[in-house]
């Protein structure tokens, strides 16, 4: 079994980031259900940006 520490760390960080984005988006939707649409849009954008780190680490890191 092989692996690389930088990809593992990047995956850990981006997983935490995506989790935080999701948690806060759910919380925000609960506070103001009327704003569900814009919140969803922003949550997807920021989740995608947090997620992008792991791919950069995966493909450019080795």
């Amino acid at each position, binding site marked *: 079994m092989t692996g690389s520490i930088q990809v593992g760390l990047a995956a850990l960080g981006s997983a935490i980031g995506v989790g935080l984005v999701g948690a806060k988006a759910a919380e925000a939707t609960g506070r103001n259900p009327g704003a569900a649409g814009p919140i969803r849009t922003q949550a*997807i954008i920021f989740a995608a940006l947090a997620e992008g780190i792991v791919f*950069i680490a995966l493909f450019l890191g080795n």
Partner: protein
Amino acid sequence: MIFHRLLLVITLIAALPFPALFGAEEEEAAKSAPAGESHHGDDHKEKHHGLPKTAPVLYHGIGGDAETGKIGPLAITNSMVVMFVVAVGIIVVAQLATRNAQLIPAGLQNFVEWLVESLYGFFEDVLGTHMVKKTFWFFATIFIFILFSNWFGLLPGLGTIGWAEPGHHNEHISNPLLRGVNADLNMTLAMAAIFMVLWLFWSLQAVGPGGFLGHLFDVKGHGSGFFGVFLVVVFICVGVIEIVSIGVRPVALTFRLYGNVFAGENMLESVMMMGGPYFGWLAVLPFYLLEVLVGLVQALVFALLTSVFTALMCEHHGEEHSQ
């Protein structure tokens, strides 16, 4: 009108990844390794290694040679076959839906109108009423194409119908006939590159070259004296960082879509192996549904990120217009 533009973009996208850059590199690498030994050595690893990173070349093109791995012009890889199928499918559906357009839509026309109108409303929120008229054709095409190629890539038969290596049993197909479109780096790179060119064009059109540089470096109106000079230096540094972040955008777009689809295909394959010969289908079922969701979310993410990048650069113009 919108559909004509959709068709135009689909044909553009379909024509772009012809050079098959990344496929060629792997062929070269495979050629340089000693042929006989590598095959025997890889036998045990090959059973679990899943999807190859690059798409195998089916037809080596004019002047190309399958024996030596030389790639000629108009070479065709298996992901390109799927891309053509998806593109033709979208074109045919669009034509069928609009061939006999009714004032009160029904059936297929109703569905297509619902899809296009929902997308229009969605992008209007992001881009504003002025920009969305100019750019809707691109973002909607990107979304529809990525969505349906992702879902097409999940159909049973992709990756399992093809040619096995001579001397192997059929358990490992080394040259599948079909492959998910976005599991090929050439495709995602082509889409990101087209977007960056269009982004530059739209930005220059909306704010002009001076406004473009002004947006990057933001040098105007920082007062005078020592502090003003200091701020100008700071904002020039910020502009350099901004340029780097813009340069990373196409790379991130490319790898995000490719990584998600490619990793999804590999995950499905390895989970299927975990389930054993009889229960593989059951083990893979929840992950299959997850991949359906990922296909939708990634299409949304690509279209949304590209439209947000466009809106970031062009929105000043829209505000000035309305005032």
